[in-house]
């Protein structure tokens, strides 16, 4: 059995438990359908676990995580992930254009994009988003509580 498969099994059981807990709060008539789906997921997951257990008996627990995460650049990945989260946290306060500018500069500087392509990318994206979303679709992009 592979370690990644064990992760999948645990994740799916976690989902089942969470939704089962939520289903109990529903009125009786609304319970049946979600419970049926939950039962299907639990059965499939158990089958997957049983298959894994058979493999475990034959081959033992295989650590395939190094294979799953081959070439994984942790620093770069978590920086991008955190930058995305920070972007979403700042967006309601600083507005779309200011946050986007800060995010693009920060992210591309971290990823070592030379200055000229960096400025060109910012200019192209700003023009594209303004033309498509502001002019064409007339989407009121958030201006930010600080500037509102």
């Amino acid at each position: 059995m592979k370690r990644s498969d064990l992760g999948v099994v645990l994740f799916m059981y976690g989902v089942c438990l969470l939704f089962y807990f939520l289903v109990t709060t529903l009125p009786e008539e609304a319970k049946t359908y979600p419970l049926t789906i939950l039962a299907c997921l639990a059965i499939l997951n158990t089958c997957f676990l049983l298959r894994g257990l058979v493999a475990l008996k034959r081959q033992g627990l295989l650590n395939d995580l190094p294979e799953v995460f081959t070439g994984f650049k942790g620093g770069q990945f978590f920086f991008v992930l955190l930058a995305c989260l920070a972007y979403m946290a700042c967006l309601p306060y600083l507005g779309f254009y200011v946050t986007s500018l800060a995010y693009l500069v920060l992210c591309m500087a971290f990823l070592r994009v030379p200055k000229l392509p960096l400025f060109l990318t910012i200019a192209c994206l700003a023009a594209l988003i303004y033309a498509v979303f502001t002019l064409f679709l007339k989407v009121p992009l958030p201006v930010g509580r600080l500037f509102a």
Partner: protein
Amino acid sequence: MPDTLVLVSQGLFHALSPINLLAMLLATVVGIVIGCLPGLSAAMGVALLLPVTFGMDPATGLIVLGAVYCGAIFGGSISAILIHTPGTPASAATAIDGYQLTLQGRAAKAISVACIASFCGGLLSCLSLYCFSPLLAQLAMKFKSPEYFWLSLFGLTIIAGVSSKSMLKGLMSGVLGLLLSTIGMDPMEGVPRFTFDFSILDSGINTTCALIGLFSMSQVLILAEKQIVKRSRPVDFKDKIGVNKSEVKRLTPHVLRSWIIGNIVGILPGAGASIACFMGYNEARRFSRHKEEFGKGSIEGVAGSEAANNAVTGGSLIPTLTLGIPGESVTAVLMGGLIIHGLQPGPELFTTYAGMTYTFFGGFVLTQFCMLAVGLAGCRAFAQIGRLSDAILIPSIFLLCVVGSYAIHNNFEEVVIMFCFGLLGWLAHKFGLNTAAIVLGLILGPIGEKGLRRSLILNDGDPSILFSTPLCWLLIGLCVFGLISPFLMRRMEKRMEKQMETPLAS
């Protein structure tokens, strides 16, 4: 029949309107650019452009999505030929002989053949779209609630089974999608389910947000985890673009054969362009009089692969539009586009909304011409764009994901939902779950639920209604086929791989 001909001609006429032509041209360019960037997929491109189509007439919106789809499938061949890196998996077989031609200084010839074969494959697939869609839609007219329940189950079993390495994982992904589709108001009782007191979830998970998250945001994370490498410079090709008469004569049978292969593969749910290109390539080699050229730079190999992968486009739209069963992830996203415009795949598209549907078909035909012109004229420029670094793509795609999901209802909470689906998509990619099946579960869930619950209400809770008609049994049979088809597909793939290895080794 005369009515259909009128609809076809009217559709073509409407598709020729300046706004449609302009939208088509721009979307084809965007599609080719996305296609020739290794790491970006056609599904990602179509998902990213979904919000842009909101402000458009549904027919124009669908033409845009169709053009991105076709453009991306062709675009993948440019980087496959010039830098030996297929832009999309659909061009993997093109890279074998295309790059060999580039090394021989015949890059322009390879690109011309790829472009013309893609055009022919795509154009011929439109024929099947015109011929088979109304027929299948007529069959779908006979569907009632029990049939819709089985249909949604069939769609799920076949895509979950075929497109994952592990069938159980594929089915689990589909059921996870079904579970997520229960979030929102209960359609029969009017009770909110699993909404965590967020009013935005009362109407369920927005399909567009989920699509952008699963296909585009997840791509940002996939690119972010890898070492950013400088892409190799494409070869500066100086040979002449185009094909001569004798080459046309030599390539025609391969293109025709690949058209049939691509169409059948496209119609079969679960088997996509990535399988068709290898099948087309393989058949081209089997029937070629110049077998020795294969693997060393054969234009027949390029034509066989490219005609097949583009023939998939029209074929895969047939079950998507008529039955609501997308054959692969791109068509699942396209179906999401239909739903966003308030249209439900099925017979209504060929009755109530026939005008819109045939305009889309007309646009799909014209897109092929657009792709030919843009592909031949701009291949040098696209080759340069294909070198765009992931360091630029990562923040740019994220920004477009944010603005796209925000634009749906001008709501920030939907950006958060999109991001959550992005994380789910990344985890699914890492742990071998199937994002296409999750999406299908999300899309088909409400159809199946309504079908099941309506049937049971009609029959006072007696489930025998689900087995009451021959059509129900046909669909049950198809569900069983869906479950055994992965084994058949795996056998076919193995056989093809063996056939591929033998001559390449020799």
